[in-house]
């Protein structure tokens, strides 16, 4: 479990992180999004016991980051976008080195190394020096290193950066497995799709401040307030746009061309429970043959752009939608 309270870090007069508060329970993933320099890496470094906070505090895996940074470091694993390996070594020797530093016994190290090599499908490369590995393989080794001591908490700072799609997928699958193995995970990423797919909760930081924090779906819902509805037809829509615009509760109906198929009807609505039945009834009454109805909230990218476009203190979202991570303080407080 990770619990941060008003975490702040200053470098001279520059405030890199300001008053960050959140909680990440076991078995959940918090994705931290934000532009370069937003304070993501500094936050991770504080939580990993590498940097002392200027103000505030945090408990990581039961240890206080101010008073027991060495104990915190013993319980966390860190993976950055750069694998940072000693490339003249073989994978088993490298993992054995870190296992020794974490104080694992010889038998424990042997067992963990075998497990991790199997997990990451690196058994065939046991005897090779890592200098010849691809970026994806190196990143797998970095993950294996972070897991050698079975940490309760994992910090993943852009772990799929620079990986090919297949390697990135492998890493994402592993992150999900780690979550199911009850680890608390903080994932810093620029990949909004990755954040949406993996995270239980997304925190958006800007200028070191938390500007939004909630479940991805809740963020999308709260930021937009409107739902986009798409209806596909077997033949053309029997109702003209004028008739659709007259239906109460729908906004901006339009027909979108669909590659040789009949145009798709799209509209926005803030009250889908009332508006959608009205639209469907009107269409079916007019003789429409409907293939599918799809409802979408705005994407996380829209939310991110919306949050980044606003000035500090304007957006405060409620973080109560997901029980695993709660916002304890918001920007401007």
């Amino acid at each position, binding site marked *: 479990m990770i619990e941060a309270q008003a975490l702040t870090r200053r470098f001279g007069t520059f405030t890199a992180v300001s008053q960050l508060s959140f909680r990440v329970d076991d078995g959940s993933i918090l994705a931290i999004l934000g532009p370069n320099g937003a304070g993501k890496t500094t936050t991770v470094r504080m939580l990993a016991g590498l940097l002392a906070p200027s103000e505030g505090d945090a408990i990581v895996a039961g240890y206080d980051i101010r008073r027991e940074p060495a*104990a915190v470091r013993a319980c966390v694993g860190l993976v950055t976008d750069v694998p940072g390996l*000693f490339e003249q070594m073989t994978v088993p020797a490298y993992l054995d080195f870190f296992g020794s*530093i*974490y104080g694992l016994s010889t038998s424990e190290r042997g067992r963990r190394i075998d*497990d991790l090599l199997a997990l990451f499908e690196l058994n065939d490369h046991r005897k090779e020096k890592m200098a010849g590995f691809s970026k994806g393989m190196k990143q797998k080794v970095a993950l294996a290193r972070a897991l050698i001591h079975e940490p309760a908490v994992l910090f993943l700072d852009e772990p799929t950066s620079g990986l090919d799609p297949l390697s990135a997928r492998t890493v994402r699958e592993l992150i999900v497995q780690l979550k199911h193995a009850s680890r608390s995970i903080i994932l810093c990423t620029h990949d909004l799709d990755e954040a949406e797919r993996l995270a239980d909760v997304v925190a958006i930081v800007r200028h070191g401040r938390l500007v939004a924090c909630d479940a991805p779906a809740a963020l999308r819902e709260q930021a937009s307030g409107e739902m986009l509805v798409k209806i596909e037809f077997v033949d053309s829509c029997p109702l003209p746009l004028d008739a659709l615009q007259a239906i109460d509760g729908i906004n901006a109906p339009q027909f979108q061309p669909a590659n040789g198929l009949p145009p798709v009807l799209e509209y926005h609505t803030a009250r889908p429970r009332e508006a959608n039945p009205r639209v469907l009834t009107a269409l079916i009454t007019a003789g429409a043959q409907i293939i599918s109805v799809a409802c979408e909230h705005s994407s996380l990218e829209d939310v991110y752009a919306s949050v980044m476009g606003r000035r500090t203190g304007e957006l405060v979202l409620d973080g109560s939608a997901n029980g695993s991570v709660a916002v304890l303080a918001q920007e401007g407080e």
Partner: protein
Amino acid sequence: MNTEITHPAARATYRQPATLRIAWLIARRQAVEAMRTRSMVVMVGFFLALQTVMLWVSLAPLMQGKSASTLGLASLFAEFYLLWSALMPCTLAVGVAAGVFAGDKERGALAPLLVTPASNVAIFAGKVLGSVLPALSYTLLGVILYFLEMALFFGLDKTLVVLPFALTTLILVLIPAIALFGTAVASVISSRVSTFQSAQTYTSILLMVLWFGLAGLIFTASLGLWIFAGAVLAVYILDILLIWIAAATWRREEVMAKQ
């Protein structure tokens, strides 16, 4: 994905790993990697080959001389080549030491080490020791090769004539002190700068200072062996002080704050 990940066995009580053991682990890994670096091996090989040629070409004619002045000159050359054979490989190791912190930091290889529970002292001492060990190993190799070549080319008797016991012993005692000083200062520089390039620049300046300092030390030998012995002892004391102060003041937080 072949196997399931087990539930994290978070340790109920945390035990700080022993500082000396961790320092040795870090030092051993780094020393082995440095000594296996291809450029290092090639350059050491080159210097040792050059040493062989220089001994044969420049010392051989002098060693055949009978007069006291010729043997005196041979003795001077022999002492110089002893220093050369010991310190040239060491100079290369000083260059490698410049990268122990700054180079690892640039490659991203320092952060995984810093995020372990190893203490600041263990990491710093391990890194410095890891850069000193290759220097001393190559220095030892150079010195052994030098004596073997001298004995082989000119015979043991003549070798003992041109290398007076007391002075030679003091030079042999001085060499590790110089190697320790050079690599320790390079490691300290490397730990305090942000980039490998800065570390290399400062280390180049250090090497110049080192050679001038060495010339000064050798000069003290002409003032008397006791003065020279005192100077050698002073270098050792300086080494210990330098490493002790640097280890006591090095903080991983400062490294992370500079990134």
